[in-house]
C-alpha cells in the first residue's frame, strides 16, 4: 500500500509540475460527499504574502500525491475553483468534527482529520478521531487520539458518520502502525461474505 497521509498535513504542500516548477501550494483538501475519495485541492499562492488562488486542482489532473509534493503534468491542470469545489463547504463541514458511530450504534468519537492514501488513488482509508470512552477503555489519558479504518460500508449523514463495528478493533495510535492495521482490516473483510 502507498504511504498514508493526514489531510491536514497536506496544507502548504507545494504543487509541482513534471517540468520542475512549483505553481501553487495546497490550501485545503476536498472530499466527495461520502468522504471516500479526494476530489481535489483548493490552492494558495506560494510565498509569505500570497493569498488564496482563484484556481483549484481537480484530482483527475493529479499525477501523484507524494510525501513532499503534489505532482501535476503542467500548469494547465489548474481549473476554476467553482468546477472543483461546487459543494466544498457542505462536504468538509460534514466530515470534520462529525460524530463517529459504529453500525451497532456505539459512539466512538469525533473526526479530527481524514487519512488519505498517497500515489494516484486518492482514496480515503480512515480517520483520525478524538476517541470517546467506549473506544479506549482503561486509558488514563484525557484526550486520546487514534486512527480508525474507514471501511467500505461507511455512511455519512448530517453530523455523523457510521463505520463498521469491527473497524474499531483496528485502531492505531500513529500513522505508521495504522498502515498495517488498515491492511489487516481489509484482509479480514475480504474473507467475510457481505
Amino acid at each position: 500500500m502507498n504511504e498514508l497521509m493526514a489531510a491536514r498535513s497536506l496544507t502548504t504542500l507545494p504543487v509541482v509540475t513534471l517540468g520542475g516548477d512549483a505553481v501553487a501550494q495546497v490550501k485545503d483538501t476536498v472530499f466527495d460527499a461520502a468522504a471516500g475519495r479526494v476530489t481535489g485541492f483548493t490552492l494558495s499562492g506560494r510565498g509569505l504574502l500570497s493569498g488564496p488562488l482563484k484556481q483549484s486542482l481537480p484530482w483527475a489532473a493529479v499525477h501523484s500525491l507524494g510525501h513532499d509534493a503534489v505532482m501535476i503534468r503542467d500548469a494547465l491542470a489548474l481549473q476554476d475553483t467553482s468546477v472543483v469545489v461546487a459543494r466544498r463547504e457542505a462536504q468538509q463541514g460534514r466530515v470534520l468534527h462529525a460524530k463517529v458511530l459504529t453500525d451497532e450504534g456505539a459512539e466512538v468519537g469525533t473526526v479530527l482529520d481524514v487519512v488519505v492514501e498517497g500515489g494516484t488513488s486518492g482514496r480515503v482509508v480512515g480517520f483520525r478521531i478524538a476517541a470517546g470512552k467506549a473506544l479506549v477503555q482503561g486509558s488514563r489519558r484525557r484526550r486520546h487520539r487514534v486512527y480508525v479504518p474507514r471501511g467500505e460500508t461507511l455512511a455519512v449523514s448530517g453530523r455523523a458518520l457510521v463505520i463498521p463495528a469491527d473497524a474499531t478493533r483496528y485502531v492505531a495510535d500513529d500513522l505508521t502502525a495504522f498502515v498495517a492495521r488498515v491492511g489487516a482490516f481489509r484482509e479480514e473483510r475480504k474473507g467475510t461474505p457481505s
Partner: protein
Amino acid sequence: MLFSQARGLPVLTLTEAEEIGVVRSLTVDAASGVVTHVRVRGRHSRKETVLPWGALHAIGPDAVLVRSVAAPAEVPPHHELQGLRILAETGDELGTVQDVAFEPETGRVEAVVGARGEVPADRLLGLGDYALVVRAG
C-alpha cells in the same frame, strides 16, 4: 567530466587565444538530457556571456576553447542544478543535486549525482525553479 570540474575553467577564443572569462555554470535541458548553454563570467567585468553549446570547440581539462562569442538569439531560463532538490514523479524528495556528470565531447548528461546516489540521465523528466523531477527508479 563533472560540472564541478568544468566550473572555473578559463574560456578562450580559438582564433585569437583571448580569454573572455571563466565558466560559471552550465545550462541543462532535462527533457533531452544535454547541456545546451555555457555561462561565462568575465574575469574583471562581472558581465555574463551566454554561449550555445554549438559555439564550443573543445572542453579540456584546463581550458574551454570557443569558436565564436556571438550571443545566441534566444537564451533559455537557467536553472542552477547544484543544490537543487530532486523530486521523484511520485512527489517524494530524493535529496539534492551534488554534481552532474557529462560527456565533454557531446554535452550529453550521463548522470546526476544526488546525496543518495546517482540518477541516470534517462530518468530526468523536467528541470524547473523548484526541483529536478525524475522518473521513479
